[in-house]
């Protein structure tokens, strides 16, 4: 009995090895693990990954993480000796932190061999791939190129009665606004709170970055800036007269927004438009497929208005960065996939996926792309005006301070001047602590 028991125990112990022997001839499947936020483009990337697997035998697994905890999870994972992913599709603002802390593999020598950089839109290359911006040192390859634009109710704009009423009131045609002053008039015209109809929904959410992304493009268009890009001096820039005027302008727009218009994140501006209450809604182009699928051709799209001759659009989107904390073999597999993805033929497939936006200039300039979706023309036009928030390693503290003080101005806790003075002081302190401020 005892011998039989020993036999059974030994057999159980050896079972895993026996199972291993059975498949001993097969190599373990090669897999590239990509981490990205949970949204439609990530589904599209997974679909392309399956095509890559069919061609090369290398599997691609796109692990999606909710936006609210995406950044936290990625940087917590970078705290480990080995990351759980090979590639992270990181926000443009992360690149400084990823590059200077040794999380992102430097791609300066490799990227130009994988893709002809002259085919990558220069603004996408500058803000999504390079650190420091304009240095020619690459830490990411373009994946999802995005920009902020406007959706508008084309049916309202084309309504004969509305057109006539607008002409009578403002002495010009009712068309998508070209300047911010035009925008204010159109927003005022459509604002009819008694009928639950509002002029505009702009990005003002406090949770992550939507307020800053919404405000900064108006601030830049009015002639303001976040600071000096070389000395990192902020005082006199972020709180300049132009910036203060821009913030007052944002406050004026809130009068024509939904009642909760002072705190609308990406999802809420989208909702304000889809529910049929708002004439114009600001958001990233990547969210616009939802509008088309919900209200179809009642919606039109236009590029961010200009002020004078200045038109600036907040950059969005993410680049592929290879983890420096994964094995060299995995890094090579990741490079194979990225090089495959950046081929023009694959990019042409990428743009057919929901919210799949490319940085390939040839595709962006093609009629085929412009006509493929109702928002593509405005998107392609926006790329020449892209600009981004600070992408230095301390970007998150800068972002939190900006969100807080600009928010206080919108909430009437501080005047725009006081809020921006406080913001400038805190930003300079953050740059001083980060040893970046040159004075």
């Amino acid at each position, binding site marked *: 009995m005892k011998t039989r028991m020993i036999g059974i125990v030994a057999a159980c112990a050896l079972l895993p090895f026996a199972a291993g022997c059975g498949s001993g001839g097969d190599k373990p499947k090669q897999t590239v693990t990509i981490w990205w936020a949970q949204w439609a483009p990530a589904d599209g990337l997974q679909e392309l990954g399956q095509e890559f697997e069919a061609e090369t035998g290398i599997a691609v697994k796109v692990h999606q993480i909710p936006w609210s905890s995406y950044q936290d999870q990625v940087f917590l994972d970078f*705290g480990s000796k080995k990351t759980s992913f090979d590639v992270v599709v990181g926000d443009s603002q992360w690149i400084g932190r990823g590059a200077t*802390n040794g*999380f992102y593999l430097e791609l300066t020598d490799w990227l130009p061999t994988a893709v002809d950089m002259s085919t990558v839109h220069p603004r996408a290359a500058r803000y999504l791939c390079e650190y420091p911006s304009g240095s020619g040192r690459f830490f990411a390859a373009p994946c999802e190129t995005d920009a902020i634009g406007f959706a508008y109710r084309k049916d309202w704009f084309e309504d004969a009665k509305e057109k006539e009423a607008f002409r009578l009131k403002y002495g010009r045609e009712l068309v998508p606004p070209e300047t911010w002053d035009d925008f204010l008039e159109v927003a005022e015209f459509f604002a009819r709170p008694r009928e639950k109809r509002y002029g505009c929904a702009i990005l003002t959410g*406090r949770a992550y970055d939507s307020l800053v992304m919404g405000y900064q493009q108006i601030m830049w268009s009015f002639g303001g800036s976040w600071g000096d890009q070389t000395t990192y001096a902020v005082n006199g820039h972020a709180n300049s007269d132009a910036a203060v005027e821009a913030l007052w302008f944002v406050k004026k727009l809130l009068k024509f927004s939904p009642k909760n218009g002072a705190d609308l994140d990406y999802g809420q501006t989208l909702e*304000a438009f889809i529910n049929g209450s708002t004439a114009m809604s600001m958001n990233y182009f990547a969210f616009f497929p939802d509008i088309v699928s919900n209200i179809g051709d009642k919606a039109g799209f236009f590029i961010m208005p200009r002020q004078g001759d200045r038109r600036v659009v907040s950059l969005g989107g993410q680049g592929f960065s290879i983890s420096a904390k994964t094995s060299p073999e995995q890094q090579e597999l990741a490079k194979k996939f990225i090089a495959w993805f950046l081929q023009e033929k694959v990019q042409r497939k990428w743009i057919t996926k929901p919210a799949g936006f490319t940085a390939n200039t040839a595709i962006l300039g093609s009629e085929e792309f412009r006509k493929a979706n109702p928002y593509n023309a405005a998107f392609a036009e926006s790329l020449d005006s892209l600009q981004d928030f600070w992408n230095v390693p301390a970007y*998150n*503290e800068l972002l939190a301070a900006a969100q807080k003080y600009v928010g206080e101005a919108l909430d009437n*806790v501080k005047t725009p001047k006081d809020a921006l003075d406080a913001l400038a002081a805190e930003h300079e302190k953050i740059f001083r602590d980060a040893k970046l401020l040159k004075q």
Partner: protein
Amino acid sequence: MLKYGFIAPALIILIALNIFPLFYNIILGFTNSELSTGGTECAGLRNYSIIFTEPKFAAALRTTALFVFAAVTAELALGFGLALALKDRFRGKMPLLTLLLIPMMLSQAVMGRYWYLILNGESGILNNLLGMAGLHQPQWLNDPGLKLVSVLIIDVWMWTPFMMLIALAGLNSIPQYIYEAAEIDRAGTWTVFRRITLPMCAPLLVLAVLLRTTDALKQFDLVLATTGPNDAATQTLSALLYQTVFKDSRVGLGCAYACIILVIVIALASVFTRYIDFIQSKQGKTNAAR
């Protein structure tokens, strides 16, 4: 030896999960440790100097103090009031008690999200009801003067039943003969409440206040679910701690914040426990005198 063997597992778990993290947290508070780089250099007292010189710590402390005071006071008053109303036996008491206890059994994070929908200024149920009644529709989560009030409303809704439950236990523990004696002595309702009900319930009420205070001091879930951790109007100490560690990645500074929060909690808890001892010893003396 065997006796040590029995307590060893619990002791090891306690050391690994409580004692070690506490001391490690204290050590990290004197470093410039960052969330994902791993590099740690001694920063001396720099983190503490930042905390005591930056206005955001003082602001978060004020917000937390205001929140704790308002929430615990409201919950105590409402909870004790409800307990007095539900003290006597009546038909349907148990189903009513069960209904009242539901909020405290739910997850704060989930309830925070539900209330976020209820309080939404444009599409929230509350404002729609107010609108139908022709009343003013406040911007609960947008108006800086109402943001903290909104979080308070949710907290009071969730935790008043807890106060009620403990107060009810206190009321039920008072022997009936004391009330009968008071009745014979023709004591009035107010006198009975002031001289019998309140003093005899006091130790349990103070315990409930202690538990709620220490819990409210850590308020985070509702803030995160409604206004986010970076909103000046509702940034409690825990929200500031989260923002510092997980958003700004400054682990060293965050640990220093955590140490200060711990000291505040311990100081408050000591005051309350001493007060409980004081009440109990006073009651003991009174009983001995009788």
